[in-house]
């Protein structure tokens, strides 16, 4: 009994007329774009300003894909092609389909996925089938399609097109060449198309959703990555076909879009920048903007603006909350020097941070040359980043822009869901610098070490091989403000682990500006790595605690093991896996510095085996191997001199200095070589004299002859690694 009642009630509900809302057209001309994705289709409303999207319809009533959708401003319904029903369909404001029958005029057995509506007429296109139009004003029972382009003429590879608001111009971006095309209609209504230019986009694309807004901007959405690009077609008499990234939207394998072209694109719950609009700040100029979410913001505040309020009338200056609260500058901007940028990541999510600086003062951000912070992936909390002001930077007032978001690849403009943009005025100070390069701005000397000290090595001098360069930067008074040390690891022909460091002899550690010291490894600044070693008297720059950790495990092997780029004939291990630039600025400029090449050395990491020449299992930081005649650092031990094969008599009172006796073997043999060129090192277990015979006379004569022993022309090439 009870069951019967329920059934009756249910039948009653089903037979009752649907609420008026269900069969109604849209109330107005929506500002969002609508995406129909998947099979069966799910409908999304997309905020074109930021790419923010939300699901608005999950049950359209169609069994499969809905394509070729367009918004009809005459009756405020969306029209599309219902693939499973093989007919056109009308979609109401609750995103339910109502299939319509076209009496004649459409080719049989074809499925359309390109369409749009203009002036109460539905246009459909299919490559190699033609273009057709259906007058929606004929009444549902009298719909007839008229061919307006022949099958032979329908050669464009399209997945959508869009009508320009008010004028009826039809545009499409083609998928095979990414070019913009315009369709024209003759007096009889027949369509033809013409190429209007390149969008500048490349790669494989499927622009499954294409729309216009009221101003005449065209938006194209790439199915593959969801990126929305904008074309400025506001002036149809003079426009460029170039497309610019506009926002990140949803991606999908199946995608079609409709939009009421007469609606403006508006921003809701959106954060904008504050720099003058020449930097692209407003929505009209495709300024940076983010749909505000629970995470991905700087500091503690992020405010929403309906439109960008930019300098000199930014909301930071008018009493509104100043949400530029996540970035502070720890030092001044001086031409040619590094700056400390303190970044506070608010919220609870790991975020990507990027930053742009108008170095040349041309009131724009050049994304190729003026992005100094690139996709730093930062945990919530406070961070210090270091960037270099170009020496050519324009002095005076300019702007910096910082963005934070959940994805990498942000540009200085364009909309992205979730994140924040903060713009700051900065002032660049003049600074005149002189660079003195050793050996040259783009050339190298080579450091080559035997790491078996104090025991003899095999003298192939490829245990550690590093190309090396020093840039001494001086101010106008000739005093040294900074060293920039460059290097590239060339070979690692050793089983022992070795770190690499450089001591600035006689330069007290306290003279170095430790906060501004930095290291760049493989072109990436390691912001959180301190390079000035603690506990030292003189400044010691640790470039790597263990060079072996900087390399992928070597694939090339020989009878001594798997070593990096020493086994002749094996090229499995890529070159240039570890390159570095380390900067060592001083708190105050120093009047003089040590001679070149400074004091570079290798050292043993703690707790690692380094041979049995020692009275302890692991010599650790006690063990350093320097060039002959160079001084130890204050963390190293002197106890290994005059042991094993070392015969030097180390006197700390003479080191550093010209009479420093260190790392000298029985015949005066060194464990390290400084070579005046970018040297081709010997193959593994090949004595350096076999590869470079002239070294013998150079060494024997105290450098009086054969100073060019290291040049390739003097090498026995088949003894080299290369």
């Amino acid at each position, binding site marked *: 009994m009870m069951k019967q009642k329920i059934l009756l009630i249910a039948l009653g509900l089903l037979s009752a007329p649907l609420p008026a809302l269900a069969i109604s057209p849209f109330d107005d001309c929506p500002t969002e774009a609508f995406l129909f994705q998947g099979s069966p289709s799910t409908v999304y409303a997309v905020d074109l300003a930021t790419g923010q999207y939300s699901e608005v319809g999950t049950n359209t009533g169609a069994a499969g894909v809905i394509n070729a959708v367009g918004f009809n401003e005459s009756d405020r319904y969306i029209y599309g092609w219902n693939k499973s029903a093989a007919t056109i369909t009308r979609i109401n404001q609750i995103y339910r389909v109502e299939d319509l029958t076209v009496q004649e005029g459409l080719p049989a057995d074809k499925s359309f996925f390109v369409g749009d509506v203009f002036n109460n007429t539905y246009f459909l296109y299919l490559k190699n089938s033609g273009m057709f139009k259906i007058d929606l004003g004929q009444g549902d029972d009298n719909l007839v399609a008229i061919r307006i382009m022949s099958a032979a003429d329908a050669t464009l590879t399209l997945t959508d097109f869009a009508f320009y608001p008010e004028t009826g111009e039809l545009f499409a971006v083609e998928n095979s060449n990414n070019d913009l095309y315009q369709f024209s209609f003759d007096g009889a209504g027949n369509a033809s198309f013409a190429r209007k230019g390149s969008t500048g986009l490349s790669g494989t694309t499927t622009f499954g959703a294409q729309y216009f807004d009221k101003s005449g901007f065209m938006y194209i959405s790439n199915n593959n990555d969801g990126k929305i690009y904008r074309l400025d077609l506001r002036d149809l008499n003079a426009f460029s076909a170039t497309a610019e990234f506009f926002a990140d939207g949803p991606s999908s394998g199946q995608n079609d879009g409709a939009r009421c072209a007469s609606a403006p694109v508006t921003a809701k719950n959106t954060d904008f920048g504050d720099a003058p609009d020449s930097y692209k700040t407003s929505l009209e100029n495709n300024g940076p903007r983010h749909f505000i979410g629970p995470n991905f913001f700087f500091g503690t505040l992020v405010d929403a603006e309906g439109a960008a309020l930019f300098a000199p009338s930014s909301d930071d200056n008018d009493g509104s909350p100043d949400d530029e609260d996540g970035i502070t500058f720890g030092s001044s901007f001086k031409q040619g020097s590094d700056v400390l940028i303190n970044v506070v990541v608010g919220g609870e999510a790991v975020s990507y941070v990027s930053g742009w600086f108008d170095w040349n003062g041309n009131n724009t951000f050049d994304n190729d040359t003026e992005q100094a912070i690139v996709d730093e992936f930062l945990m919530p909390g406070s961070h210090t980043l270091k960037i270099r002001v170009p020496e050519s930077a324009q002095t005076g007032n300019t702007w910096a822009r910082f963005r934070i978001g959940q994805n990498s690849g942000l540009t200085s403009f364009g909309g992205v869901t979730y994140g924040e943009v903060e713009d700051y005025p900065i002032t660049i100070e003049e600074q005149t*610098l*002189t*660079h*003195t*390069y*050793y*050996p*040259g*701005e*783009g*050339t190298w*000397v080579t450091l080559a070490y*035997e*790491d*078996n000290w104090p*025991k*003899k*090595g*095999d*003298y*192939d001098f*490829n*245990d550690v091989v590093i190309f090396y360069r020093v840039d001494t930067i001086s101010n*106008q008074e*000739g005093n040294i403000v900074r060293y920039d040390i460059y290097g590239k690891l060339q070979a690692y022909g050793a*089983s*022992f682990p070795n770190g690499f460091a450089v001591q600035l002899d006689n330069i007290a550690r306290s003279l170095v500006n430790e906060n501004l010291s930095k290291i760049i490894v493989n072109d990436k600044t390691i912001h959180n790595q301190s390079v000035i070693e603690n506990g030292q008297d003189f400044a010691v720059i640790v470039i790597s605690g263990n060079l072996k950790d900087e390399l992928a495990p070597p694939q090339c092997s020989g009878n*001594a093991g798997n070593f990096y780029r020493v086994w002749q004939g094996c090229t499995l291990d890529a070159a240039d896996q570890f390159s570095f630039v380390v900067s060592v600025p001083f708190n105050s400029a120093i009047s003089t510095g040590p*001679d*070149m090449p400074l004091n570079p050395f290798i050292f043993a990491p703690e707790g690692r085996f*380094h*041979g*049995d020449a020692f009275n302890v299992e692991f010599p650790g930081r006690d063990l350093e191997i320097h*060039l*002959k005649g160079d001084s130890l650092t204050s963390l190293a031990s002197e106890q290994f001199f005059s042991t094993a094969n070392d015969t030097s008599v180390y006197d700390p009172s003479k080191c550093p200095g010209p009479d420093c006796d260190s790392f000298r*073997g*029985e*015949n*005066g*043999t*060194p464990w390290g*070589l400084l070579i*005046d*060129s970018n040297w081709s090192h*010997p193959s*593994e*277990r*090949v*004595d350096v*004299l*076999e590869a470079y015979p002239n*070294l*013998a006379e*150079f*060494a*024997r*004569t105290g*450098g009086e002859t054969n*100073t060019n022993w290291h*040049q390739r022309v003097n090498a026995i090439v088949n003894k080299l690694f290369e």
Partner: protein
Amino acid sequence: MRKILISLSLAIALSGCGGDDSGGGTGGGGSENKVTFDQIVIPSGFNLRSSYPVMLDIALNSNELMYLNVYGSYRHTHNGEIVADTSSRIIAGQIKDGQFKGKFTATSGLDSVLVEAWFLDGTRIPFRQVVQLPQESITIRN
């Protein structure tokens, strides 16, 4: 000679057994007939370095701000002009009131350096002088 050879062979054998070497034990690659690097007697005090410091003193008869470039490599074109190899630049900086004093480190391969002083307006031919090396100091006057 025979004794030396025997002891050398022994050293190789010992090293091979020990297994405690990193980049190789003694004399690994040399054949018995060849002199190995550690057999070369290096004069006392010679650290096998051939780079050396060079003092540079420039005084040009000019009150203009100029830009100094010192290059280690350059070439002569067919019409006699000198074109610097930019990667070989050793010094880059301003010359104020015609005066510059500095120091650079020359490598053994440098036969000469090209000293250029450019006027900042870019309309006049720069001051150029080639200076032969080696020498401990370079003085330039015009």
